[in-house]
Structure formats: structure tokens, C-alpha cells
């Protein structure tokens, strides 16, 4: 079975950032993303998601290394100082690599 190596970028951020993040991802060349609702704790304290905007979202993007780096650099510059947000990147094998290359047909419509 032929597989290709791609990067899996995971972002955990405060929930109200969802629309902004989705727009950024589209602009920076991600061809898709997956979001789940989450809660957690980090340097900005507990975010238990019990009400209103107190929750987190967990966003995953499968893409090539360049796109992952571009997204990571942008998010760090744009959000790290003022918002609850972390990100980490791992390696994954994918079956249909063409679904996860960057930049062709940028996705710009906001989701969720």
C-alpha cells in the first residue's frame, strides 16, 4: 500500500478563536481541518468549558511540512502573547497525499 509522509499539526486554543483560526488556515494553504471541542489547563489557567466562552477547541490539520511551518509561525506571532493557545506537530502517513498538499485551491470559507 502506497503511503506518503505528511505533517499533522494540532492546535489547542480558546474556543472564541475558532472563526479566526479557520480563516487563517484557509489563507495559509490548508486543504482541510478537523475540530473537536475540548477543555484543559495550561499557563493561562483552567478552561473547563462549562459556560459561554470558557472552553477550548482542538484543531487538526494534515498538510505538508512547509504549510505546517507557515501556519505554526503565523499562529505563534499572531496569538501566543494574548490568547490561550498551544500547538504541536507530528508525522503521519496518508493514503491519498494529493488531499493534503498545500496552496492549490485555498479554502477560504469560514466553517463551523
Amino acid at each position, binding site marked *: 500500500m502506497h503511503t506518503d509522509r505528511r505533517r499533522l499539526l494540532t492546535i489547542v486554543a*480558546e474556543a*472564541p478563536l475558532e472563526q479566526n483560526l479557520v480563516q487563517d488556515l484557509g489563507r495559509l494553504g490548508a486543504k482541510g481541518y478537523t475540530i473537536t471541542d475540548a477543555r484543559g489547563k495550561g499557563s*493561562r*489557567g*483552567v478552561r*473547563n*468549558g*462549562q*459556560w*459561554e*466562552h470558557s*472552553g477550548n477547541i482542538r484543531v487538526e490539520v494534515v498538510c505538508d511540512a512547509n504549510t505546517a511551518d507557515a501556519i505554526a509561525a503565523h499562529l505563534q506571532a499572531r496569538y501566543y*502573547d*494574548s*490568547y490561550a493557545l498551544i500547538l504541536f506537530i507530528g508525522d503521519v502517513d496518508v493514503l491519498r497525499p494529493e488531499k493534503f498538499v498545500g496552496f492549490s485551491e485555498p479554502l477560504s470559507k469560514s466553517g463551523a
Partner: protein
Amino acid sequence: MTIDPVVLFFLLGLTAGLLRSDLRLPSAIYDFLTLILLLGIGLKGGVELSRQSLGTLAPQMLAILLMGFALPLIAYPLLRYAVGLKRPDAASIAAHYGSVSVGTYAVVAAYLVSQGIVFEEYMPLFVVLLEVPAILVGIVLVRGITRSTRWGSLAHEVFLGKGVVLLTGGLVIGWVAGVEGVQPIEGLFFDLFKGVLALFLLEMGLIVAGQMSDMRRYGLLLMVFAIAFPLFAASIGAGLGRMLGLSLGGTVVLATLAASASYIAVPAAMRMAVPEANPALSLAASLGVTFPFNIVVGIPLYHALARYLHGAGG
């Protein structure tokens, strides 16, 4: 002083939370309860508006708007220099206290009904009017008025937040549909209102319990502000109510609105517009101190104040 049963639900939630019970309401239910409360309040106000001429209300509306601009402007220097906060934090908290808490409005309305005191039913209109100005003031206090201000996205944040949309939507629907039109949906929005409020306050108790552990961290001065400013604002509100010729009940409501601090619309807008402000700080004050203070102690106080202003007999 007897405690209204809905406030008992708040105390139940608070106690359960402080004792670390595993009681928890799903956030979907919290959303459902606020949906019904916001629409219900809006509808009730709208139905009443359909009986009023907006013209006669215009002067009152203008005065209310003015108060909405004035309160955060008074709060800001206190927070900046007396409490000693950084500029973004002072501005953000000023916006919270200049705006209003819909939950607190629901409690004072329930309080007056159960005391058999009438008030101007179009008050929800004032709730909407008071939500917005403080947000604008808060933002301008940090950013100034520069070319780069993104007014478009700001207006979006301010006017299209869930709270303003549902309140305004309810007002308009109630106004268009009138008493008769609203009658078939009264079962959900009016008959269940106090029960829904009770559950909402139960949840608020749980949330406040969570906030309380954070409070100590932010210093005594802010906590003092979170009680002193509402008292001050309530007297402004009560005075204005008297001046505008509101009934005793209406005066109590306006005092309570002035005393209340937003914990829904303003936090959301500030988070986007002034992200460098620490949201934990404003929530600890508005939700951890002012909200419980107002619904347990404040409202009866403001009632007494209003009675005093209306001549002892009340």
C-alpha cells in the same frame, strides 16, 4: 428579608460547587436556558412596547444611553489609579461595569413580581440599550480613536453577539406580534420563565464557585471595587429613575441594571477587541463578587433606596 426561591437555587449551586460536588450542567443546557431567558425577556419587553408609542419613550431612551456612556467613564479612572490596574485591564473592567447583566435583570424582575411591585414592562428595551455603549467606551479607552480602528469588525462583535441578537430579536418579535400573537408561545417563554431562571441560577452558582477560588489571587482592591462601584452606580441609576418619573419598581430595576456588571456580552467583545486585557480579572470581579452580591444583598438594598427616593411610604 426573605430570600426569593430562585436565589435559593443559586445558593444550592454555590454550595455544591464549593463542596466540590460532581454536580455539573452540560454546556448545551446552559445555552438552552440562556436562549429561553434572553428571548423571554425580549418578548415580554416587546409586547409592552407594542402598547407604547416609541416617541414618548425617546427621552428616557436617550437618558439611559447617556448613563451607559457615563458609567464606564467613571469606573475607568477608579480602576486605573485607585485599584492600580494596567490600562487594558482597567478599560476592560470599566466596560463590564458600565454594561449590564441580563441574569441580574431577570432576578430583580422576579423579585419585584413576587413582592407584588409593578414596574414598567418595557424595561428590556433599557437592558439592550445599556449593553452596548460601555463596550464602545472600553475599546476607545484602550485604542483611542485612530484611523486603524476596525469599526466594521467591532460593530460585528458588539451588535451580533448572541445576547444582543436574542434580546433585540425577542423585542422585535414581541413588538410585531403583540399580546395576542405571542399568546401561543407563552407556555415556553413566560410560564416556564421562573423555573428556567432557577436552573440558570443553579448553574451560575456552580460557575461562581469555580471563580471564587481565583478571586484571592487578584487582590483586595479589586474586590472592594466590585462591591463599592455597584453601590455607587445603583444610586446613579435610582436617581435617574426618579428623575425620569419611573415607578418605584422601575426605579429598583434601573438601579439594579446600573449596579450590575456584564459577564456575557462584554467579555466576548473585549476578548476580541482588547485581547491584552486579562479576562480572568474581569470575570473574577463581575461574576465572582458583583453578581452574587447583587442578587443576594444588592437588590433588597436598591429596593430600600428606591423607596426612600419615592418617599418613605413607597
